[in-house]
């Protein structure tokens, strides 16, 4: 068995196993640290910065930082929460996130984080970038307007031989997550559903579903994201 260590989050001492990340330790102990690009089962990469925390006056990502004995962590503070809110706001203005017309609305993690951190309006100006929609594949629609480049589809969606369906194209400002056209032709319904479920926003949609669940019954209609972790 791994050695048990102790760390402090917002003044509360919690136990953790050596090798756990801070996010894992916090969630196991009823403390929520918001994540977006992080996905259970894949190696964290800390690109969205949603899980920003403060350790010894330094900003770190809780999904990539291993828990260490004696750590003192600031998590649910005004300062940290405002940083997180500003990250959500940046994501909203840097894409085209039209919640009222989105099929994923109510089940969207980005939207749910905006609800949790009470985003009324982004503090940044909207950019309305020009992006396309790829509907060529028989099973799914890839809407670039809503993509936040979290890489979750690239990391988790592959066929039985381990070939990936999604990949990054270009670099920098023009970077996009694209679908392999050849592989998309043979995509199964199960893989398409998994791709849609693993996408935190409405960028990957399974075709011929549309608005499935009525308002009031969707995942984040009644309970904030993260409440499943909190005690």
């Amino acid at each position: 068995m791994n050695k048990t260590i102790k760390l402090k989050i917002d003044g509360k001492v919690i136990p953790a196993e050596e090798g756990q990340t801070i996010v894992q330790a916090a969630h196991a102990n009823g403390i929520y640290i918001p994540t977006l690009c992080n996905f259970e089962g894949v190696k964290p990469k800390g690109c969205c910065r949603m899980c920003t925390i403060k350790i010894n006056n330094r900003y770190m990502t809780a999904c990539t930082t291993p828990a260490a004995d004696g750590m003192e962590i600031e998590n649910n503070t005004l300062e940290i929460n405002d940083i997180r809110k500003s990250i959500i706001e940046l994501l909203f203005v840097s894409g085209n996130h039209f919640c009222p017309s989105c099929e994923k609305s109510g089940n969207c993690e980005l939207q749910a984080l905006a609800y949790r951190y009470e985003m009324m309006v982004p503090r940044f100006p909207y950019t309305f970038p020009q992006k396309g929609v790829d509907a060529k594949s028989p099973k799914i629609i890839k809407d670039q307007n809503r993509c936040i480049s979290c890489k979750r589809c690239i990391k988790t969606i592959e066929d039985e031989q381990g070939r990936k369906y999604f990949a990054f194209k270009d670099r920098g400002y023009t970077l996009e997550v694209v679908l392999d056209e050849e592989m998309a032709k043979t995509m199964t319904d199960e893989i398409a559903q998994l791709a849609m479920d693993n996408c935190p926003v409405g960028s990957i949609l399974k075709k011929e579903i549309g608005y499935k669940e009525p308002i009031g019954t969707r995942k984040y209609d009644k309970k904030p994201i993260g409440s499943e972790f909190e005690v």
Partner: protein
Amino acid sequence: MAKKVIATTSLAGCFGCHMSILDIDERILDLIELVEFNKSPVDDIKKFTKRVDIGIIEGGCCNSENVEVLKYFRDNCDILISLGECAIMGGLPALRNGIPIEECLQEAYLDGPTVKLNIKKVLPNDVELPQLLDNVYPCHEVVKIDYFLPGCPPRADLIWDALVALITGSEMDLPYEVVKFD
């Protein structure tokens, strides 16, 4: 206590937010005890007749008339509220952002699949018509907006709570269920 004065308008919106104001149901009887309406589609007053305490804006700015009305509201209201997604971020009309105006008009009046009656193939060009803006703009990118109530439409409870808080000067609590973007 003198009644607070409220004005409302719908810019590039669908009047859904106004319907949501009416959706406060019988509380509207309490509301008219607390406020009087000035310029608003509710009472059809076209021009401000006095200084207004709370101006409620539905819809973003898609043409020159929207901008003019919005500035008119800013000049005459102490507090301005952006009500609904369109006022806050442009909403569905902003889906045209990035598409050249010429292309939009072409599609709407000449090439669209439902265009049947435009035999002379003209685009609307009367001088009385407001000019379309290059993009649809959120209200707070045109004038200073004091408060934002999101939703499509904003829940009636959210509108009610916000108005009561503003009128009585009390703190507003935001239950999780009432702040939604759809």
